[in-house]
């Protein structure tokens, strides 16, 4: 056991964080995002030349290549914003619940949003895009409250595994509800099914425009919660001792993350595992300070979903694999490795 020797009065800079390393990583992920966005416009079942991309950006769709690029530009943008929303949402959820397994998919929140939308379409003739977003957010919030309540029952409160179990069980139940509702209705079954898997293939600028205001509010609320999440990470008692209003802070941050994953689900279907994988990878890069972790998770989430979408287009040529399937293939082994680690404990 070493006791620290007494040292001369330290320079204030000793206590400063290694910000330069983080800035470097920030540049790296931003560069990766830009590269992936470019690749996403170029690569696909038909590769497009740069001249066509430039023409398509100018609004032209005369050649087949230009037409393909015109479709891929909104698709790429949607992948970026949805991925960013899911990555950030997952990071906030992990912070709010101090639970390394928290993720909009694992906790069943995406499925809550999905069920609400399917019910809305099947029984209430829900077709307006804005109404679908609102419905999805209400469904996400309902599932979040329900899963947290169930996971908190019994001794020890909302432990990581209990919360994940409650979320997974709820998720399974919600999926059966969705199937039960959609299957007998031939008219909506197919659209529900493809939406349910999760994809960004049908993206339009209109769809992005509808969901963007919700996402922007979600981004703002979540990012501004960073400092509160830093306090909550030390335990509720210490957070309160540091002047944090614990219930208010937790509720605000949860609201931000529900807005993000609800809106993302409304436009792209329930895409799993992005919110789980991304914050863990980002923690390796920049540490546990939420002021860095949250923006990083957003950018890296955009990277992961864009990359997954590209992979989905390449592996099944000339057909495509929905991005939700690709993220599940990447995320499932990751999920298992987190669970298997000895230290599944509070973050």
């Amino acid at each position: 056991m070493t006791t620290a020797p007494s040292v001369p009065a330290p320079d204030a800079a000793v206590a400063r964080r290694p910000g330069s390393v983080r800035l470097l990583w920030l540049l790296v992920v931003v560069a990766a995002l830009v590269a992936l966005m470019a690749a996403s416009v170029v690569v696909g079942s038909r590769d497009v030349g740069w001249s066509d991309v430039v023409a398509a950006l100018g609004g032209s769709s005369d050649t087949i290549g230009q037409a393909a690029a015109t479709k891929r530009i909104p698709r790429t943008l949607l992948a970026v914003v949805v991925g960013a929303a899911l990555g950030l949402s997952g990071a906030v959820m992990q912070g709010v619940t101090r639970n390394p397994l928290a993720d909009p998919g694992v906790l069943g929140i995406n499925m809550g949003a999905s069920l609400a939308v399917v019910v809305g379409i099947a029984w209430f003739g829900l077709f307006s895009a804005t109404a679908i977003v609102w419905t999805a957010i209400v469904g996400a919030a309902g599932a979040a409250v329900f899963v947290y309540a169930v996971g908190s029952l019994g001794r020890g409160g909302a432990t990581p595994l209990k919360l994940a179990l409650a979320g997974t069980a709820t998720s399974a139940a919600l999926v059966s509800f969705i199937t039960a509702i959609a299957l007998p209705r031939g008219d909506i079954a197919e659209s529900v099914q493809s939406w349910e898997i999760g994809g960004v293939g049908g993206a339009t600028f209109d769809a992005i425009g509808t969901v963007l205001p919700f996402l922007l509010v979600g981004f703002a609320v979540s990012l501004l919660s960073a400092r509160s999440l830093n306090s909550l990470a030390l335990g509720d008692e210490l957070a309160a001792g540091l002047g944090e209003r614990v219930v208010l802070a937790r509720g605000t941050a949860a609201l931000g993350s529900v807005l993000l994953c609800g809106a993302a689900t409304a436009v792209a279907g329930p895409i799993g595992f992005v919110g789980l994988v991304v914050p863990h990878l980002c923690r390796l890069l920049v540490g546990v300070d939420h002021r860095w972790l949250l923006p990083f998770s957003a950018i890296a989430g955009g990277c992961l979903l864009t990359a997954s979408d590209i992979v989905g287009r390449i592996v099944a040529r000339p057909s495509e694999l929905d991005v939700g399937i690709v993220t599940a293939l990447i995320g499932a082994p990751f999920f298992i490795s987190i669970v298997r680690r000895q230290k599944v404990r509070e973050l």
Partner: protein
Amino acid sequence: MTATHSLAAEALTLGYGDRTVIDELDLVVPPGRITAIVGANACGKSTLLRSMSRLLAPRGGQVLLDGKAVHRLPAKELARTLGLLPQSPIAPEGITVADLVGRGRHPHQGVFTRWRREDDEAVAAALEATQTTTLADRPVDELSGGQRQRVWIAMALAQQTDLLLLDEPTTFLDVAHQVEVLDLLTDLNRARGTTVVMVLHDLNMAARYADHLVALAAGRVHAAGTPEDVLTEDHVRAVFGLDSRVIVDPTSERPLMLPIGRHHMAAAAPRDVVRQVG
């Protein structure tokens, strides 16, 4: 940092569910001194401390900081005057010492304020005071128990409060580290005039380090005053239901309590028995 704040409880009643733990308790914390709260298990020591730092709302009565009820003060304003170190705070996995200590600056920062020079200075001073400067870049998970406790105290110091409440700061530490932590708190009290209130399990440590001792029993203050007044054989019997001898500690000249169990009675036996043996 020489401002002396008054902290007191008035007819304070606390409880969980339908159980009353603290019953109309009155207590005055002497400013600028070290106060230790002692008592049997589950007598409400920690509950009292939690309520004094407004983690637990009173059923009746109030906790007053400079005459104002703490439960009505703005959270951050209170956190700039009164710091709390709970019994088992959580260190996020992989967090570095400097980052953890920096989180003590929370009450001094707003949502949009950036990390400032004075924050750096507060963190550096806290690390230095707890002799953890050389650990600044180490992950907290890798530290020994004693080092970790010093880091938590450094975090509380970075909060720069005139009052510091600690819930059993020496639990799980071996005796050398217990002494180290309590010496550190004494340094703080002497150098900065910080008012320290701590819950302690070990009566002798409490008597040695506290200027003011508060013994709780049955949800009330059984005795309060100097260690000499409070740590007596009669009070130990009343509070813990334990027979004991109290002698004068030859090193500190504070009272030292020696418990008497059922099997080792020689020292406490009547004089004539001792004389026979001797």
